[in-house]
């Protein structure tokens, strides 16, 4: 009797759990959708409390909301747009905030916050942008030229320290590092409500300025930030819940794990076709399984969210996925600390790395060996860089002859997140060992890796870059004093060639010889040993189209243009 009673009680309890999942459809929490359609719910099976409200409605409501989940393999480090140079952060920033223009892989620029732009013909020092008059902040206020001026001034403010200061150093009214000069007029002014003018200290090709400086120049809302004293702005509560003008409106985040956005249906360039956007941090090995199950809709690409080589074959056979092998402009290099490793040894190292094994064995041909920062089909590429020297004996001899201390163990740093890069570390360690250089591999998370490399706490480090259609992209990384001068280079000749001489002229024919020489100088000085261009192996759910992965390494995902099938 007792036994059957407890049995019955157990059955009742169990069925209560089961029945509670069948909630009656409620219209309460559905997102207002402008499209009438069958429910396409990609809601996460609620791990966060904020999700619970929407989940039941999304699963059962006929006019369900569309959620797109993008996966990347390493986390963002801040929501303050100028306080980072981390690509994972940029992937998030460009959803919330706007920049003036976007860069396409073919070298062209398209409007974002700015409709039109021009450079004056006489001096080449004045850039004028006309802003889109429909642009609004997420709180409804219009975006004006004052916001752009405010942002630039903030970045030049002495009271705050941040890694993107060198961007504003181009403009008059700042000192060489980009700090506001007190007695000069700042070179960024609002000519009227929708026109901003930038005055440069030195003439510079507008293509460089757009591709590099304005590529990640995110505009902030003056009306929400101008009353905060500059000393307190970095710790302001504003960043807990940022307000931007971009296609996605910040809703919530779990640090290091996910960020949830709602779509900005009033976006001036067109409302996104999704209703919610989620950025999730997912280990590379789980990307494919997530895509197969529908938990993830699209990878972030650009080395931030690539399908691992091991999974590529299986990915291509999946019925619900579109896969692409994208030849991007992004590259990976071995940064060499010039303070610890002399030039002859650096040249030897460059000659000793087996790029063929990396590209053809490890990456199964999904990439190309790098002779320098430009891919071989880049219009500015210097053919004399080929073939890439590879001679172990000669390299070993050079190391010996230089008197380099080969009894020491040197440090080779790599970060987690880019699976191919992580795997090249032991390969490069072996290559270095063959020429007498013994190394120890130190693996850390990406933000720590970048921080340590900036400080020069390493001998060799594996780092990547998104590349650019502009041939001067790599110059800042070898410029003495720049925050990303990873190699601790103190020789200004590369900078002088690439950003002084190369900026005096604006046409392709005039710039070509300068940058050809720049590439030869890089080969000679070897602050970096360029390794490879990796094809981005990406995959996304078939219901998404009009995505242009080739632009992603240029920080341009244009999510409002993605087409999402019902």
């Amino acid at each position, binding site marked *: 009797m007792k036994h059957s009673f407890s049995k019955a009680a157990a059955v009742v309890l169990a069925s209560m759990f089961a029945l509670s999942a069948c909630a009656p459809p409620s219209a309460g929490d559905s997102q207002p959708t402008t499209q009438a359609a069958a429910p396409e719910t990609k809601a996460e099976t609620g791990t966060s409390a904020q999700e619970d409200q929407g989940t039941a409605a999304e699963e059962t409501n006929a006019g369900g909301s569309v959620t797109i989940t993008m996966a990347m393999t390493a986390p963002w480090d801040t929501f303050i747009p100028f306080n980072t140079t981390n690509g994972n952060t940029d992937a998030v920033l460009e959803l919330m905030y706007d920049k003036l223009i976007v860069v396409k892989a073919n070298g062209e620029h398209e409007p974002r916050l700015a409709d039109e732009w021009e450079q004056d013909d006489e001096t080449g020092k004045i850039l004028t942008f006309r802003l889109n008059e429909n642009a609004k902040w997420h709180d409804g206020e219009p975006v004006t030229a004052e916001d752009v001026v405010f942002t630039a001034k903030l970045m030049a403010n002495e009271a705050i320290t941040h890694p993107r200061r060198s961007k504003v150093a181009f403009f008059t009214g700042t000192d060489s590092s980009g700090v506001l000069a007190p007695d000069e007029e700042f070179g960024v002014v609002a000519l009227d409500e929708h026109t901003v003018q930038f005055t440069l200290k030195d003439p510079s090709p507008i293509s460089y300025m757009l591709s590099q400086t304005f590529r990640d120049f995110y505009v902030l809302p003056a009306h929400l930030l101008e009353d905060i004293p500059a000393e307190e702005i970095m710790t302001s509560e504003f960043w807990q819940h940022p307000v931007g003008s971009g296609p996605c409106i910040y809703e919530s985040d779990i640090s290091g794990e996910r960020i949830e956005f709602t779509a900005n249906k009033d976006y001036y360039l067109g409302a996104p076709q999704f209703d919610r956007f989620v950025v999730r941090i997912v280990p590379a090995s789980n990307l494919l399984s997530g895509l197969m199950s529908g938990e993830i809709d699209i990878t972030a690409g650009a080395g931030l969210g690539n399908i691992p080589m091991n999974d590529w074959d299986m990915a291509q056979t999946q019925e619900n996925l579109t896969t692409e092998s994208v030849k991007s402009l992004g590259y990976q290099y071995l940064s060499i600390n010039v303070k610890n490793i002399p030039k002859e040894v650096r040249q030897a190292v460059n000659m000793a790395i087996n790029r063929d094994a990396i590209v053809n064995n490890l990456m199964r041909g999904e990439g190309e060996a790098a002779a320098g920062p430009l891919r071989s089909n880049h219009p500015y590429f210097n053919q004399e860089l080929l073939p890439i020297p590879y001679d172990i004996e000669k390299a070993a001899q050079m190391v010996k002859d230089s008197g380099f201390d080969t009894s020491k163990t040197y440090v080779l740093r790599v970060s987690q997140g880019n699976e191919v890069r992580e795997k090249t570390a032991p390969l490069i360690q072996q290559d270095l060992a063959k020429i007498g250089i013994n190394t120890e*591999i130190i693996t850390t998370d990406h933000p720590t890796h970048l921080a340590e490399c900036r400080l020069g706490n390493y001998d060799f480090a594996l780092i990547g870059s998104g590349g650019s259609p502009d041939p001067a992209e790599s110059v800042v990384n070898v410029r003495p004093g720049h925050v990303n001068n990873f190699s601790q280079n103190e020789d200004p000749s590369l900078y002088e060639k690439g950003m002084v001489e190369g900026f005096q002229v604006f046409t392709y024919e005039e710039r070509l010889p300068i940058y050809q020489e720049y590439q030869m100088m890089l080969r000679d000085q070897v602050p970096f040993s360029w390794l490879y261009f990796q094809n981005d192996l990406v995959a996304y759910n078939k219901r998404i189209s009009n995505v242009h992965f080739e632009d992603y390494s240029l920080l341009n995902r244009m999510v409002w243009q993605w087409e999402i099938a019902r």
Partner: protein
Amino acid sequence: MTKGAVSRDGREIAANSYMKDVIQRFSKHKLAMISLVVLVAEVLLVILLPMILKLDPYTTDYDTFFGAGPSAAHWLGTDDIGRDSFARFLYGGRVSLQVGIISAVISLVAGVPLGLVAGYYRGIIEMVIMRLADIFMSFPSMVLILVLVSVLRPSVSTVTVVIGILGWPRFARTIYGNVLSARESEYVEAARAIGTKDGAIMTRYILPNTFAPVLIAFTFRAAQAIITESSLSFLGMGVQAPEASWGNILYQAQSISVLATRPWLWMPPGVALLITILCINFLGDGIRDALDTKMVI
């Protein structure tokens, strides 16, 4: 002590010693015997086989396709960067077993004196040590280990020391209980009566009687340490490239394709871990049964 037998010519044969009894009882526990053999074989294999076959887990074989399947040259194929998987499997075994055993030793060396002292002196010393043990035990150990290892820079030695140090409470508490009862026994009282120093009492009288539970705790602790090291390496925080351990071999094999299509990469370390842990546990069972038939754990 059992009364000895008498030999044919009348001499008394020495009574069966305690150890002999123990060994006899242990040999009756089939599972433990098998486990002992397996474990010894494992240790011998991971130490000797690489030397005999001249295996190299660090060097990339550029002549074979990276990630190739099993072949004559590479019995378990190669990993993603062309290193011999079989070599890595065996070397990984060395690391995993080494971390397991050495960290258990560290835990023992740290925990036994503390437990002994706490149980013998009682009072404030007991309170401090036992409460400390409680605190350590109530911390989610994996989290603590992850934090410590990331601060101290992951490596085989860091991992060994950290796991070792965090394992002391188990030994301390086990011994503590035994000491509490042992100190009340007559022989201890007698020793105290004749003026034996505290230290001598603890080491010569009490400690040998706690041998049994300590040995058992040691085996279980070693098993746990092996699992912890594997988990850490699986998370990328344990043994670092280019060293191999069973855990970090599994870390490299996580993707769905490897799991589905290249079982030779993950099955050996996975199965080896399983067998090792099982055997250590059975061994512990056997020792427990053999050493003290009255003891209840």
